């Protein structure tokens, strides 16, 4: 179903405009990081729509029942994809945002499970509602950018702990070290463009 090289064909004419719509902000959040700002993409209606279209085209016939979006920038893309392909949208959130108690023991609907992960800069924790996914669900994970893959790994863990099968992770931007081995923790990784240098 998936080829080894999951990046979309370079000839897709929409990709040039997508790359150009992304703004680079140097030294944010700290010195040395060239931050890939996708908010400028959201300001360009045609490019934003094209971005969603590319993901929808890829996933619409794959029986995906869950689109999981990583807070917060995964929320920009995930819900529109979910609506277009007829899937549920599941937010994967920072700690203490999802209502309900964080539990480590027995599972109750509305309770929350969490997974720690290491960031490109720092560390954090991702949470998901118990009962949002169930065994038999086929899920994709959406975020704006994949750097180390730490956040996506945590997302995959949460969905699998809930019994879902993670079919693929999808991002707008992927760092170039993912180009040759498009996977995170053995799950295929799909992204549209590489980071801009400036």
């Amino acid at each position, binding site marked *: 179903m998936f080829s080894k090289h999951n990046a979309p064909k370079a000839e897709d004419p929409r990709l040039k405009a997508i790359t150009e719509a992304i703004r680079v902000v140097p030294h944010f959040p700290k010195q040395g990081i060239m931050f890939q700002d996708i908010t400028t993409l959201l300001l360009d209606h045609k490019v934003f729509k094209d971005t969603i*279209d590319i993901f929808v085209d890829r996933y619409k016939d794959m029986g995906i029942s869950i689109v999981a979006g990583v807070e917060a920038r995964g929320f920009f893309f995930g819900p529109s994809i979910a609506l277009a392909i007829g899937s549920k949208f599941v937010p994967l959130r920072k700690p203490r945002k999802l209502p309900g108690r964080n539990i480590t023991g027995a599972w109750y609907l509305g309770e929350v499970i969490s997974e720690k992960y290491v960031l490109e800069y720092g560390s954090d924790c991702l949470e998901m509602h118990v009962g949002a996914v169930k065994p038999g669900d086929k899920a994709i994970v959406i975020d704006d950018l994949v750097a180390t893959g730490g956040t996506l790994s945590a997302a995959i863990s949460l969905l699998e702990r809930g019994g879902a099968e993670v079919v693929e992770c999808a991002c707008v931007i992927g760092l170039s070290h993912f180009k040759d081995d498009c996977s995170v923790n053995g799950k295929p990784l799909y992204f549209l463009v590489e980071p801009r240098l400036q």
Partner: protein
Amino acid sequence: MQSSVGVCSSSSSNWLFRFSAAAAPLLPSSLTFPISKSSSSSLITLSTPSLISSPLRSTASASAADSSHLTEMASNDAQDPRLPRISSAIRVIPDFPKPGIMFQDITTLLLDTKAFKDTIDLFVERYRDQNISVVAGVEARGFIFGPPIALAIGAKFVPMRKPNKLPGEVISEEYSLEYGTDKMEMHVGAVQAGDRALVIDDLIATGGTLCAAIKLLERVGAQVVECACVIELPELKGREKLTGKPLFVLVKGA
């Protein structure tokens, strides 16, 4: 898996029009443009005590849950038939984030593909002919509803964020919390003078957050046409804090 509601079998470029396709308008004419204050009262809503509770929760919370159910409003207007399902898809979680708060959880709405699609459709139907150029979504749950609306009506989407999240130059507006203050930020250059804007969030409580968003947009010369939320908590009178801007909501919570 759900039926093919929302699944696009034809070319993907049709998906926008598919899920925002017009049914015959169900809104009374008073709710169409120009949007006056009197017409900004919400469509709703809904009587059914719709607490989607865990069967394992103790019944001690039942009485607290009853007071949180979505109230029936006397309305002269025909209720949109999509609203009951939207309302019952919202889960109320008692004592979150602290004792006494009945939290209106929209994540269960996002798991109901028909109800989520209907929610977006209701907003799109209201705004698509209003020449809206900006949909401003308030972090973070406004990011879930805002972009689909923006895409369907041809507007740009602008995130209104907590401090230090937006890279580059921002303007900020402080607002009051129950204890202390917080700040909301918007990118410089995202919105221009003359832009016609909507502000979207999942819920309006005291109105402080929406008010900050209105101020940021107006500071750069945009015209805030309306604020739109899925849920209103009318007892908190947030509607009065919107500096005269109209408010449109789908459901009301007690």
